[in-house]
């Protein structure tokens, strides 16, 4: 279990080691930062590999700066412990981040902390142990949205929409998305066309994007 908040780990423990979880013998290692987590993973990969990893996204980065988040950690873990089930637990619920994590890590479990209750955690745990991936309702919602649209927006388009929704001006977008201004404009127009609201202004675009669940 990797989380920088001992209280949260306490919560996980309380849930998983509860009375109704007698059928599993659970041994838990905890780490509160990337360095410790990586060390533990490395060590276990050489001895007894972990069966399951609880990974928070926001973590204090490693001292050498190569691992900056749970996302990076999960990538390493997948290489080092290919058989381990990875469960991502995060406070972040923004679509583009969910999208990224799903794409980069494809975790066995994806739980949004704000949605999470202990019964859901147990359910997820049980599902994942038995080999069924489990996603939080929010994540599922994201999947659904992606499905209902007969097109999908790539990461960059999503980022553009996300930053626009935060009030960033189009002309400042190159600072946030690694694209030139003209490219951004082009993409904006593409998105508008996809939403079949060509020539609408930014406000309309955002409204539509919200309606369609991209923001």
């Amino acid at each position: 279990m990797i989380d920088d908040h001992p209280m949260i780990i306490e919560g996980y423990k309380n849930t998983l080691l509860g009375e109704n979880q007698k059928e599993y013998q659970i041994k838990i290692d905890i780490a509160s930062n990337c360095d410790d987590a990586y060390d533990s993973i490395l060590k276990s990969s050489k001895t007894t590999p972990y069966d399951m990893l609880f990974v928070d996204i926001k973590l204090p980065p490693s001292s050498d700066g190569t691992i900056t988040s749970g996302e990076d950690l999960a990538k390493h873990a997948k290489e080092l412990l290919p058989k381990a089930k990875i469960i991502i637990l995060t406070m972040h619920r923004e679509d583009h981040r969910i999208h990224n994590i799903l794409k980069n890590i494809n975790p066995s479990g994806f739980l949004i902390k704000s949605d999470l209750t202990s019964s859901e955690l147990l359910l997820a745990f049980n599902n994942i142990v038995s080999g069924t991936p489990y996603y939080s309702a929010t994540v599922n919602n994201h999947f659904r949205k992606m499905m209902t649209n007969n097109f999908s927006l790539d990461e960059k388009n999503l980022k553009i929409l996300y930053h626009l929704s935060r009030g960033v001006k189009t002309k400042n977008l190159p600072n946030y998305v690694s694209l030139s201004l003209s490219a951004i404009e082009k993409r904006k127009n593409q998105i508008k066309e996809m939403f079949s609201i060509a020539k609408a202004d930014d406000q309309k675009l955002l409204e539509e994007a919200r309606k369609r669940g991209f923001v």
Partner: protein
Amino acid sequence: MFRFHIKYACFFFVLYLSSCQEDKIEYKGGDELRFGLIESSLKEAKDKKRSLKERKESLKEAYAISSTLDDGLYKLNQFREISLEYYRVKDLDNFKKHNDKTLDLSIILKDSLNMAKSYFLNGLYYRNSDLGIAYENFDKSEKIYASFDKANNLDPLLYAYDHGKVLTDLAKILRKVKDYSQSEGLTIEAIKKFKLSKNPKYLPLCYTNLGILAKYTERYEASVDYHLQSIEYAKNTNKEVFQTIASYNNIGTVYKSDKKYKKAEEYYNRALSYNDFLNKNPKTFALLLDNLAYVKFLSNDNENIPEAFFESLSIRDSISDIQGISTNTLHLAEYYKSNENDSLAKSFAERAKNAALEVNNNEELLQSYELLSEVSDNENGLVYARKYIRLSDSLVKEERAFRDKLARIRFETEEKVQEIAAISREKELLIFAILGLSVLFLLGYVIFRQQQSNKELLFEQNQQQSNQEIYRLLLSQQLKLEEGRKLEQHRMSEELHDGVLGRLFGVRLSLDGINQRANDGFTESRNKYIDELKSIEKEIRLISHDLGTDTLSPDIAYVDVVESLVSDLCTVHKMEFAFANDENIDWETIDDQKKVNLFRIIQESLQNIFKHARAKSVKINFDYVDDKINLTILDDGIGFKSSKVKRGIGLKNITSRVTQMNGVVDFISNQDSGTKVSVGIPI
């Protein structure tokens, strides 16, 4: 320094103007009428059919009206005309009086030409009564004409004839006081002037004068030549006969002086051949007869002699020609003396003496004394001899004194004329000084203006710079503020999200986990609180999200500055406001000058609204249309009549700011429906 110049320039300028004004002929209301009256009176005065008395009356009338005119050239001309007319009607006292008035006026008007003319006419008036005064006047006149010659700024034709006349008169006076060389010089000068003026009227007179002078200086042949020329110049004029007789008589006299009696006789006879003329002029006839007889007597041709003398004397007696009688009786006395008839000689000599005394002819008086001293007995002869000596002495003295006097007059006049010249030079100098000062003043003014405008430019530049500086400070302050706020918000957001929210989540999860295991019948109610915790989490997350949202980009700052200005001012004045900014305006790329100007325009407009409009709300919009920023400031106040409102400094400032940015501005206002200020600025 400049003020000093200006002051003096003004002073001189006023002086110059006032001196100019005197030369102007001013026509006032009613002048036309007066001109008419003067001219008709003068016309009547010139009418030779009317009696002298009537003509004088008319002149008096003309003068009375003329004197009411304002001083000027017209008045002067009328005065001149009137005085000359008095001369023509032979009212010499009035002529003199009016000529003096003319002189005074021409002095006031600084009209030198008329001054010279008046002096000349005064000279004419005194010519027969007081040679000294006459000479003084002629001399003054001549000096003025001579100064024209020197200055060379007048057309010589304008005054050459008059100048010649003055010179002639001066020459005559000098001849009379026996200053022959001077007289000759002046006469030659006069001849030059007359020739220049192409008016030969006085040329015979001049040559006659030269002839007489030549005779006095014993250049007899030259004298005869001059007299002959005199006849030449009189040819084909109405004075031809008169001049010829006079010149022949003169030539006769010259030959008599040269003791060429036969020649003299010949010329007298030539003169006497003009019977027609002589019949009408007994005085001339008597003169010629007398002269002829005298020459015959001198050449010892005594045929018919005393008879000829007596014939002449009887004519002269009959016409009371006293001067003639004096000469005639002298001749007779001489004749009887040579015939040794002393008693007759004495009686004629005494008659001659009385006549000479009567006409004041000193020369003949002297001759009569000489004769009397010779023909009287010893005792009386001595008395006459003494009288002769005394008179002769006194005459010499008098002549010398008179010449001295004339010299003095000449000197004094010269001084005066020099003074006049000095005055005119002064005037010239003054004009130059004024011109110079004016140029200096103008130059100074130009430089002054240049400096002023430079200063203005500099000031404007400084103002712009300080405006930019103010804006920059305003902006940087705002940015710092925003930055601080942003940092703090970010910190709070992170704290909430990662710290508080995480711990809360942990607590909730633990509680939930424990709750699952507990079976004490309170699970449901605890679940309710756990859900409540969950919703608290959600709320905190939302807050954190809001705080963390990066709403600030640098270009927002300008709009923020503007909005805070509007907001601050409107709050203070308790007015509602709406502010809208077009997102498409890229404030960051717009130069600070424009931003400051727009800021100031909004400020100025708001001040106007607060002061005058009595508005309840104001709406301020930035719109972006066709590469132009349109700023609209709209209020719902009482408005104003565009035509009625004098453009105040506020509106002027706005207009000048907009012009500075090559923009356009419109003030649209209708009474009672608010005011709209529209500003369009190209980017």
